[in-house]
């Protein structure tokens, strides 16, 4: 990447920060509200979805990843992929442990 050698000067415009902040606050209220109504099985995915969205906003804008090098993206994605491997393969055991053998 060509722009490495000068300190990068892409300063995020103020409105971006405020919009993100408002979205985060709204997400918090929404997730709290959604938890008070019984949606059956859907409650959990909704809460997780909102949390993930909030996290992505923070990562992209507050942590400037949207302007960052490809390498930064790789680092972040890799860490979640690795965590995913831990979850998927461990659950593969727990969820099939008592399956019948035939």
């Amino acid at each position, binding site marked *: 990447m060509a722009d490495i050698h000068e300190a990068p000067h892409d300063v995020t415009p103020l409105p971006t920060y405020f919009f993100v902040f408002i979205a985060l606050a709204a997400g918090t209220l929404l997730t709290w509200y959604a938890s008070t109504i019984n949606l059956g099985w859907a409650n959990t995915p909704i809460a997780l979805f909102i949390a993930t969205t909030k996290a992505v906003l923070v990562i992209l804008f507050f942590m400037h990843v949207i302007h960052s090098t490809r390498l930064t993206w790789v680092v972040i994605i890799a860490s979640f992929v690795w965590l995913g491997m831990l979850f998927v393969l461990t659950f593969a055991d727990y969820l099939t442990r*008592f399956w*019948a*053998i*035939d």
Partner: protein
Amino acid sequence: MMLTDFPLFPEQASTVAKQTDALFIMLTIVCGAVSVLIFTMIFVLAIMYRRRPDNELAQEEEAPKILEATWIVVPFIFFMATFVWGSWLYFRLARVPDNALDIYATGKQWMWKFQHPTGQREIDELHVPVNRPIRITMASEDVIHSLFFPSFRVKADVLPSRYRIMWFQATKVGRFHIFCTEYCGTLHSGMIGWVDVMQPTDYQKWLAGGSEGSLASQGQALFQKYACNTCHTEDATGRGPVLLGLYGSTVTLANNATVVADENYIRESILSPQAKIVKGFGPIMPTFQGQVNEDDLLKLLAYVRSLAGPRTTTPPKEPKS
């Protein structure tokens, strides 16, 4: 020394032993050949091309791609074959033959306790008939142990949390080692014993020797002692479900999920009854965690398993909450 006579290969004394050994021998031959090949190549090449005045600098060679492809693909095919073979064997070990004789085992620091269906109990010694599948249901009272019969090529960890099941069918009469192979503390290496494989008639004779009644009948006594029978009656008048024909049947739970009533379900029903509530009943059964030890639990299990008959899932007249 008089140690001239020592074994290099373990005795084959069960039906799976032959199959395990076949896989082992195949792997030994192929992998042995590959290792020898690598060693030979290394030494032959290293000597052929050793540094000499006329060989001060290597001659560069362009790497042919086909060579790389070969040594990726050929081993890979072999690996997959090994995988399939190994898995086939594993499934065979996991699937218990139907007509198996049931034996119960408890591991505790540092001994093995075995109980026969007829009620005989033995410690660090196990008598079984030859040529008959033996199914061992086992649990641990403390830490993880592992029950290992080297001559039968089977082992399984024995957990403190749930029942594990293993099986074998001995093919030779004789005495063979039992080892504990999961490290379990001070006397791990002393947690050993012998399995006595006998002719069926000898086994019957051995069984005839003193016993405190069959396991199931001992379980029945406990069933009264712990007052299970006050709720679990034989007709649908008790506060709990009738246990007749429960073992192996499919139970519908309060949340409409279904489970198969196997050893671990029955165990859980006794130790933490609230975990899975049977549909139509209230969560009133008290836990027996801490009151029933592993031995008694096995007896209760044997008793519940012995309650044959058609499953009747009639809820009580006035469901309590």
